[in-house]
């Protein structure tokens, strides 16, 4: 078994004395696309924030090794410089900042046109636009993915990357996720969309802060869809019961 790129063990996180992540274990191999499924409130996005080191998301216990390095003492940008990044479900908007600048952060010689093309946006139309509220939700999502591509990360955490994207464009999103893998990266893919999750190499189901199932994406989707949750016995995952 190769050494995991991401190795999480017994990770806990509480908010207002309420456990959100409960001794969570998860590992992701180099080059793996790993889908994370779970009902609303199961802890998926919290896990993403804890991994990235967002403010207010310091875990109460456990360990996170990234490429053999303990992430917990590191600040957010230090984690990013190790090759970890996060694409938010609702990406931030930046007044006055152009798409070109946003995709070329601290890389003055970087040509952002190819990554824009990769996400299906015409560089001639978009490079000089602002990453502000003039962009639609779908456009902003694509630019967020282009930003992740431009970083060439070892592990990209994508939180609902296809949210707000029209059905025809979902294949584009799938291509982007595959491109991240083809470039040698891994992806932790948080999604509710079955057709997106099925491109993963492995998938895990999260319930009440703990991984309750890991296996193939098809198995995970079927597990998520067709059964009472073994952990909450339907208390949390009721809406997925048949």
């Amino acid at each position, binding site marked *: 078994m190769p050494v995991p790129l991401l190795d999480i063990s017994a990770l806990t996180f509480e908010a207002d004395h309420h456990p959100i992540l409960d001794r969570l274990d998860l590992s992701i191999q180099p080059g793996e696309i790993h889908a994370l499924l779970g009902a609303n409130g199961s802890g998926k996005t919290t896990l993403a924030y804890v991994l990235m080191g967002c403010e207010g998301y310091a875990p109460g216990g456990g360990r996170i090794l990234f490429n053999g390095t303990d992430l917990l003492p590191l600040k957010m940008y230090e984690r990013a410089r190790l090759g970890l990044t996060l694409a938010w479900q609702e990406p*931030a908007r930046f007044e006055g900042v152009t798409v070109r600048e946003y995709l070329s952060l601290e890389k003055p010689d970087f040509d952002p046109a190819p990554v824009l093309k990769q996400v299906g946006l015409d560089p001639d139309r978009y490079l000089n636009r602002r990453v502000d509220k003039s962009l639609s939700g779908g456009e902003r999502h694509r630019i967020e993915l282009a*930003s992740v591509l431009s970083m060439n990360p070892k592990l990209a955490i994508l939180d609902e990357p296809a949210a707000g994207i029209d059905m025809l464009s979902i294949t584009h999103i799938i291509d982007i996720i595959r491109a991240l893998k083809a470039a040698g990266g891994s992806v932790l893919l948080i999604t509710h969309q079955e057709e997106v999750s099925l491109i993963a190499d492995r998938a895990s189901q999260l319930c009440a802060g703990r991984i309750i199932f890991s296996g193939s994406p098809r198995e995970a989707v079927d597990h998520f869809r067709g059964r009472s949750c073994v952990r909450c016995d339907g208390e949390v995952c009721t809406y997925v019961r048949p």
Partner: protein
Amino acid sequence: MSDLEDLRRTLPMVGAEPAILDDTRIAHVVAHGHHILSHRTVPGVRVELEETPDAIIGQLIVEAGAQIAQPIHMCFGLAHPTGVQQIKIDVEICEGAQARVLSHCLFPVAQSAEHRMQAVMEIGPGASLTYTEGHYHGPHGGMRVLPHATIKIGPGARYFSDFSLLSGSVGTLDIDYLVEVEADGLAELSAKIFAHKTDHITLKEAVMLRGERSRSLIKTRVVLEDQAQADIVGITEAYAKGARGHVDCMEIVQGRAHASAIPIVRVFHPEAKVTHEAAIGSVDKKELETLMARGLSPEQAVEMIVSGILR
């Protein structure tokens, strides 16, 4: 070195090239204190200024129907650490004329100095004026600047102003603009200021939408750090059918700086509408974290966000 040369060398601080003063196609005025050091006019533009012991007084007129291709540069300043400059100017953009005025206010070595501007601008029917005002007050924080203006925008006329003070210290800045807009007229006022140390900004912009279908936007972006403070008031009053106004104020506060933003909107006609938004606070956390998740340090992320806001 001459006062003219001192001011000329400072033009790049407000984004202007010194060579504009040599270009015979470009109208300009350069004044140090109450002395006019250089001026040129072009066809369609009349500049009549008089030096007095207490002020430079005069008028700038763009003749009816004139389309002035090159911006008119008005360069006012003080080349010395101390002094007073007062400008009283009437600007008239006659019917159907179009012009751009770039006003450069340069006080590169000011330690204890004052600049007062009292302007009355009239934009005639169907005319258009774009007025860009760039300030540089040097590094010492010893400048006191009071630009006060009344702007009358005629029927179907358009007025765009853009005030910026983005490098060096502000000192004390007290802006007071009153804009009256007649039917189908448009006023867009933008101000961008970066304040540091003990800088103090008072900014009051008031737009009166008097005519039917008159429109306005007041957009203010202020970033404060250290112990700087700002009090921003954006007023829009709509008096006529179809009048539309919006006030948009954002202040980013860092360190021990403090700020207030007061949008005042009043509507006196049932078919008029004025909206406002005001935000004061630190740099947006999500924007900051997004950039840090791409590897920027907190300092680099703040710099990028702030420079975007002030663009």
